[in-house]
């Protein structure tokens, strides 16, 4: 009995860690897509942020500088996406594909040129990484049954970016649904012509959305390289940007549901790391490949509209052309 509890805590603990980059990227996509800019370049932005945060954190020894460098790198790609899809009214999906390849190639090229370690950064340690925080009273409460381990091992002991990501959920909800900016942002994704008629700049609003998306993807990437792992390795985001995209659809473009879907997909990733636990508790072996594919299969089912219909923002993917 006690074993089950401990195993559960372990799996949920890694669920929280693995959900964090998904959640940040998912909220990034939420801001962008709610403003009518489809973004399949989440993956690329996370990847480039992961590399530059690790590279700068290693050279400067400061993880905060690393985080800022990661955000800056992600913002550069965001601006390219903005130029292509807002200013030059190009195809947003093609632009996203280009950004993903740009990041996949550039990170390895620059990593090889700077560090000569086959497309990776040296390992980070000490101040170049985000340390895990111990919340107040965690050690004092640890011996208390049930509550102790839950507080000490599950809730306490993560890097500050994990708590930041969790705090972003209510914050995003508040910005989107309780501020004037949020109302306009959502309006620009549904009916840009109405926003334009009201005398508000569609272009400026959409650029703001793309910038917010860049910042959040930057934090997600920096978390990957400086908190979850200790350094950058080639293609380390490994499709997480696409899982975040899937989580966004699963959440039907709403912040709280984004949290739930990211936790679910994070849980699946955590289970895939511990096939022994699955076998112990349900009695038969579940293929790791099935667990890997499950987020994508679930998204296709949701997209097919079998479990409630996922309707994207109405003006999503369409460049806005001012009427004359």
């Amino acid at each position, binding site marked *: 009995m006690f074993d089950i509890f401990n195993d559960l805590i372990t799996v949920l603990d890694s669920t929280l860690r693995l959900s964090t980059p998904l959640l940040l990227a998912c909220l990034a996509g939420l801001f962008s897509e709610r403003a009518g800019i489809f973004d399949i370049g989440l993956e690329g932005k996370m990847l480039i942020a992961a590399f530059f945060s690790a590279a700068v954190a290693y050279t400067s020894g400061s993880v905060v500088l690393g985080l800022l460098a990661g955000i800056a790198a992600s913002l550069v790609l965001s601006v390219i996406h903005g130029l292509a899809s807002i200013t*030059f009214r190009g195809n947003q999906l093609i632009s996203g594909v280009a950004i993903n390849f740009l990041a996949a190639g550039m990170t390895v*090229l*620059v990593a090889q040129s700077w560090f000569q370690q086959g497309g990776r950064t040296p390992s980070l340690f000490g101040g170049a990484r985000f340390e895990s925080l111990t919340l107040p009273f965690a050690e004092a409460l640890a011996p208390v049954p049930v509550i102790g381990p839950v507080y000490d091992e599950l809730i306490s002991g993560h890097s500050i970016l994990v708590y930041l990501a969790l705090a972003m959920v209510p914050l995003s909800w508040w910005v989107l649904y309780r501020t004037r900016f949020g109302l306009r942002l959502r309006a620009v994704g549904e009916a840009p012509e109405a926003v334009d008629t009201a005398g508000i700049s569609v272009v400026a609003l959409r650029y703001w959305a793309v910038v917010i998306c860049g910042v959040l993807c930057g934090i997600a990437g920096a978390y990957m390289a400086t908190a979850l792992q200790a350094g950058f390795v080639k293609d380390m985001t490994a499709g997480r940007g696409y899982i975040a995209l899937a989580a966004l659809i699963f959440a039907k473009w709403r912040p709280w549901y984004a949290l739930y879907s990211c936790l679910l997909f994070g849980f699946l990733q955590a289970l895939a790391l511990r096939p022994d636990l699955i076998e112990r508790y349900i009695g038969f072996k579940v293929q790791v490949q099935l667990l890997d594919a499950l987020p994508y299969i679930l998204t296709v089912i949701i*997209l097919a509209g079998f479990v409630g219909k996922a309707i994207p923002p109405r003006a999503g993917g369409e460049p806005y052309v001012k009427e004359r």
Partner: protein
Amino acid sequence: MQKMPVWADIVLIPLISLILAAILSALVILGIGQDPIAAVKMMVSGSLGSTYGWGYTLYYATNFMFTGLAVAVAFHARMFNIGGEGQAMLGGLGVALIALYIPWPHWSLALIFCTMGAAILGAAWAFVPAVLQAKRGSHIVITTIMFNFIAAALLNYLLVNILRPPTSMDPATDSFPAATHLPTLHDILAPIGISFSKAAPANITLIVALLAAVFVWLLIWRTKLGYQIRAFGHSESAAKYAGINPVRITVISMMISGALAGMMAINTTLGESERLILNSTEGAGFIGIAVALMGRSHPFGVVLASLLFGFLYQGGAELALWTSIPRELIVVIQALVILFTGALDNMVRMPLEKLFLSMRRAEG
């Protein structure tokens, strides 16, 4: 009234985009402390300087012809098939099952039936996203991305757990029987007195790819179905009004697209590795996007763009072998080509259109 002459639209704009991509790539090479001119020289000699280099260039180009044609057919119906990678993986599965479990007396029969197997499984993998797009309005880009990942997981499962021979640790099938091995360009060209490198993997599939390009041209511009596909791509409402069934066109054009992407596997799996390996596609499904964009979705343009990317691919491999420039340089160039010919098309187009308009005014 057209804003620009036709030649400017189909030649000038891709050319300018390509030059912009080349300039930026040169800057990237400079940025990592290497000499771009020496790099280009090495790429040219490595990919075009010997029949061995040509053999690899043409081998890669064959892959890109299939995937480029696949993306192009979908583009004509105004759909973005980003799932070429997954469809090609399934195509590989089709090739492997047919080549492994049926004792073929001669390679020509194996080629015909493996092509069918690859096309059928590739088309089947595109079928579900197509139906979901046509009937339930789920966005084809998202579903095909998801199907790429599902295909990768499926292939991984099949190769590790089922198709792998019990004596081997490698996640790959057994080698195909010798009777299914395709003739290489060396075998084809030797009887007519041309000596071609024996080691290079280019094979008879190149001819199949060129035939596929002719087929796509005939289909799109010379058949009723092709007319319907183009009409649907230009205006869905007009096509509906003309009595064209949107569900039928969506599903059929996606299945043709998937079949073409799947057929890539006869080059890689039957032609080169002669067994099904993990990651046999090596991103060729995605390069098809760049190829179709550069080739303006026209089969002739796709063949030319495939040759260019074949050259880049083989040249990039040579660079990675002899210098410290990693192979990922090609991924950067590919990204820049997609960015300039696809997403930033208007950046090149708008000033050119202005230029041509002012020239016309000056004449008039």
